[in-house]
């Protein structure tokens, strides 16, 4: 009897303990929810709701007044994603990324390597090289609009002075995309420079010194120490620059408005044209969803590779 009583007491104590633990966990979860609430509210309003709404709008064809008129399910997605116009826009965006990303990266790396030298007055160069990060797209575009102007632009003046034919940079279908790319490279250079310089500063000096003692020259150190150690930073820059390229809008709108002959009609500009000029809300939404998946894929690639960064911890 006494044993049974003891067992009963023990089981009551144990169930009390389980309940107390459960309550503590519940309180913890509630507390976490309270802390997360502001972020959840912000993300829900400005990210999740617009995203879901965009998915939803893609299921409706718009009438000539821009209102969602008829539910067509996935048909519109299939039409838009299979259309030549979308493919052309995608191709233009890919070309734009190809022009801007590798060149921007190489220039950013070069400037960062120069500015990483321990020389007197280097801080002035660092400030100059990173200044474009504080320049707005609008200011940069207006500046380059003047520089690229076929009549008064300094670039054409330089070409004429050196015996070359002047180029109608923004009006010539062959040159419009390279000209917009040039502006974008300049615009992104500050960001790329800062990121790569920060990456360079994390490489322990002893690795370079060890390589020096071991017989490596400057080029060998660059390829065997600097670049491998910098690879996570470079990958991060590539992904961010590519995402930027896929999301470029301001400079296109201010410099070429997607023209001439749609040669600079990148995806975001195409979405803008469909949504706000042609009032084709559904088509714009379908293109927006496609862009979302492209950017998502790039982000996943970045996360996947950045995970390997742990490898580099010494």
């Amino acid at each position, binding site marked *: 009897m006494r044993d049974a009583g003891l067992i009963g007491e023990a089981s009551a104590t144990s169930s009390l303990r389980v309940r107390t633990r459960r309550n503590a966990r519940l309180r913890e979860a509630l507390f976490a929810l309270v802390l997360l609430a502001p972020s959840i509210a912000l993300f829900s309003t400005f990210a999740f709701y617009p995203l879901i709404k965009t998915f939803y709008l893609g299921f409706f064809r718009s009438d000539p007044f821009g209102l969602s008129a008829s539910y067509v399910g996935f048909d519109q997605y299939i039409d838009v994603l299979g259309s030549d116009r979308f493919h052309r826009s995608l191709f233009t965006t890919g070309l734009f990324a190809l022009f801007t990303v590798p060149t921007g990266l190489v220039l950013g790396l070069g400037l960062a390597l120069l500015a990483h030298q321990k020389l007197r007055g280097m801080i002035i160069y660092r400030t100059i090289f990173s200044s474009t990060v504080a320049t707005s797209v609008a200011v940069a575009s207006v500046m380059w609009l003047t520089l690229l102007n076929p009549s008064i632009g300094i670039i054409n003046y330089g070409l004429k002075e050196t015996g070359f034919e002047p180029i109608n940079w923004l009006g010539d279908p062959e040159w419009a995309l390279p000209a917009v790319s040039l502006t974008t490279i300049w615009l992104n250079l500050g960001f790329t420079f800062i990121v790569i310089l920060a990456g360079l500063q994390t490489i322990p000096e002893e690795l370079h010194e060890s390589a020096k003692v*071991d017989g490596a020259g400057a080029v060998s150190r660059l390829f*065997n120490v600097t670049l*491998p150690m910098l690879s996570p930073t470079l990958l991060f820059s590539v992904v961010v620059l590519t995402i930027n390229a896929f999301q470029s809008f301001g400079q296109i709108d201010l410099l070429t408005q997607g023209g001439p002959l749609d040669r600079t009609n990148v995806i975001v500009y195409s979405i803008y044209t469909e949504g706000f000029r042609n009032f084709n809300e559904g088509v714009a939404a379908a293109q927006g969803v496609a862009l979302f998946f492209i950017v998502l894929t790039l982000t996943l690639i970045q996360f996947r590779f950045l995970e390997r960064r*742990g490898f*580099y911890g*010494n």
Partner: protein
Amino acid sequence: MLKQRGAALPDGWSKPMSRIELRNVNKFFGDVVAVRDFNLEIEDKEFLVLLGPSGCGKSTALRLIAGLEEPTSGEIIIGDDVVNDVEAKNRDIAMVFQSYALYPHMTVRRNIEVPLKTRKIPKRERDELIAEAARWLDLEPLLNRRPAELSGGQRQRVALARAIVRRPRAFLMDEPLSNLDAKLRVKTRAELVSMHRELARTFVYVTHDQVEAMTMATRIAVINDGALQQVGPPQSVYERPANTFVAQFIGSPPMNVVRGTLVRDGEAFAIDVPGGRIPLPPSLGPTAAAASRADLLVGVRPEHLSFDGGPVRAQVRVVESLGHERHVICDLSPDEFAIVRLAADEPAPSVGDTVGLTAHPEHIHLFNPETTERVS
């Protein structure tokens, strides 16, 4: 760690003399003097330890030898050549860094291979040399791992393998044991000594740890404030420190140094110190008198003081037990104190006791209070 290989060294180990000399070397970083008027000769096949506190310039001196820093003035000589204008890669030396400086993106094999590859040694020969270095340092099972997958001790062995693989004429080591735990440090210390013996190469080793210096060096160079204080075999530096800095930097607990006044005591000499009078041995008195000054600094190591009712009165403040020995801290005056080292089985006084101290006459050191240099 290092496998015994006997006297026979593989081909390629017969190298020219690897004597190293720093002649009137100065190194300034702006207004900061890192190395001041350095004159140091390191003999071929010597194990020289540069010893000093943090920031004293010992690592800078090593980096000057390595070619990672350029001297502001003076000459650095390796073998018979002045190497001031010779790049680090052409000095035929290897360096082991405190952090090991292993390339984290490379496997152990590739890390060891780097110095061979940069010297364009053919693949087949490279493989043989790597295998040999790996065998020496027991790294064979780890060759395909990356540094992040190794323990501190294993990384240190990889750094050593990378240093020995190309058979340099001298090894420079910058505090290579400081990242290891105490037990591994003791083990590796002994292994480095046997490595030095087997490789028969010049080793220049930087440390702030006097135990490392005392146990490994054939000679110690003590540095303070960028200047050489004393160079000599460990025992001689310990027994005859050149100045009060060396006296108090080497030895644990440090040497007791107190102010004293030289007096004549009948025919002999003695020193008045706080708490009493220390008679000087006949050999020391005339030397002290020749210094032609009465005020002196008197140094006695803690193990050379004993409680046998001697002439110096002191009051016991603290008794510290370290297990194998005890340190008794005694006040000689309100400003001066002395530490006495006792073996664990020796009777120790109690806190508060007034005791009489005796300094062993043959172990009394006298220093000039102005220059802090040794006068005896």
